[in-house]
């Protein structure tokens, strides 16, 4: 309920108070605003005891120190930085860009710029466009190589699907120290 009320109030405020201001502000302001809004929104799900909400928000902005009552090691956030790094790179148009580079090489043409190949390009919002390796290779040898690359991409995507499935299955890991058959 708190979550619903939060977004309800926010929508009204955006419509009547600061919506226009936000739309005129630089994009970075909008990004930061969105992140702050959804991170705060998640706290309504995470904290079930309302009396803990304010201390939780305080902790989020460092009122109790950078690591609060825990140590840096205990907070475990450090374990995830390689994942964050991969996610940060994957969130850029690197995949469409690479795809365009390969296609341009196969078709003997100059590659499009990274701005044109970015995921922000509406053309790439269609998922089949984003992942499918489509082009017209200029020579039979390039066609062969392109086909191999296509298969490798498919295998990589399936491996990603397998890894995702494994991650879901691992969520149900439920061990007992002592055997309880």
């Amino acid at each position: 309920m708190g979550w619903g009320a939060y977004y309800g109030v926010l929508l009204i405020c955006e419509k009547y108070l600061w919506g226009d201001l936000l739309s005129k502000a630089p994009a970075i302001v909008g990004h930061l605003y969105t992140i702050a809004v959804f991170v705060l929104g998640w706290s309504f799900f995470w904290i079930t005891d309302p009396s803990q909400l304010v201390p939780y928000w305080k902790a989020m902005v460092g009122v109790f120190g950078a690591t609060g009552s825990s140590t840096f090691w205990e907070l475990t956030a450090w374990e995830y930085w390689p994942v964050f790094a991969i996610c940060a790179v994957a969130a850029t148009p690197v995949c469409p860009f690479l795809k365009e580079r390969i296609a341009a090489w196969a078709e003997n043409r100059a590659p499009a710029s990274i701005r044109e190949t970015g995921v922000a390009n509406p053309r790439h919002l269609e998922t089949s466009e984003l992942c499918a390796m489509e082009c017209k290779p200029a020579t039979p040898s390039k066609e062969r190589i392109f086909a191999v690359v296509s298969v490798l991409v498919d295998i990589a995507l399936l491996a990603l699907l397998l890894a995702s499935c494994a991650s879901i299955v691992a969520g149900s890991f439920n061990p007992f120290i002592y055997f309880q058959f």
Partner: protein
Amino acid sequence: MHFKKAANTTFLILTACFFASAIVVQLAIGAGFNFPQEMKAGIEKSELEGRSYAEFPKLSSKELKNGKAQAQFESYLSDRIPMRDNVLLANAALQRACIKAANFPFNFDAYPTFFEADTSAVPVDNLIIPNASKTSSKCAPIAEKLSKLLNRLAQEHPETRFVYDALSTSATSEFNPTYKYSTDGFNETWNQDHVLCNLTAENIFAFDDSIESFDELKTLWLTTEHHWTLKRALISYNRIAQNLGLTEYPYKNPILVKAKWYGARCRLGLDLEASSDFYDMPTDFSNIEWRNNKGDKISYGKRDAFLAGKNIYGNSPTYNVYDSYYGTEIVRAINNNTNSNRSCLVVCLSYAKALKGYIASNYKETVFIAPGKKNTEKPLSAYLDEGFDDVIIQLGRGNYLNIAERSPKFIG
């Protein structure tokens, strides 16, 4: 263009294989096909997780409405994934590789074996250890209540001799490599302040049985689980024996029980890379009758069979050797080969499993209760009213909460 067709066909075949595999395996299991053990398809229990797999939920409108049926179905489904154990291990290995890379700039001695794991790997020393346990505001009052109760009961039973072995384990020792990275960990001072200081009765011999160094943790405790080696167990036993005038057993002529096995921490940490040798001594306890809580005669775990020369674990890698080797059901021991008429009550944890024979060899009758592991039906005072000559209590710092939760009657 035929290369493009070949690529598309390959993709379709790979995708079909992926989705069809789960269906084919389930159909084959349904048709009674026996998969090789290595595939672990269609089995009903997991050695790795130490539990039986979830059964198909019993559907009722009540459980469908409250969401239990859906949750149970999810558990059932995830338990039916072919090669589930291997999937869990592979996923954990992937996460561990990430954590290992993440640790590069920080260079922590120990790091979790997968995301959110309460088990850590110490690669330099080839250890798999539980993360250092935390004290809590609930734990100290329970420890104080138990120790004060014991002290009062000791005063009420002046003819009974009490020994309190205040254990620290790998999880509750300040020499646990993750202790320095944690807050509010157990330490020797905690033991002194909340337990030992209350045990002042004249007929109680209480001693701090802490791990004394990291070297001890590495060499005298099993490196892939929380239990101790027999060598370390006998150090504690001999200290108890000296005080009660029992037979002392020096650690000698050890025999290797199993060259390759996976400890409880390997299972919990989903990390089977570390190994630990498991040794026992061929001490003869054949004159002792072991009984379970129904009064039935049982063996001393798999130990009897092993000493009789049987290949008790086969050739497959084995989990939880400590537990299965010493058994989990012994609650009473009757010694037919002693002139003593004395009896002993042992209040213990799983650590005492290695010592049951050594303790029982000194008494006509020995009763073992584990209030932190299994529910005990009676309060401690009722056990003492049975008139035991000696009472040995061997408890760890981290077990007081378990006692209150699993055996609420025990402390009263």
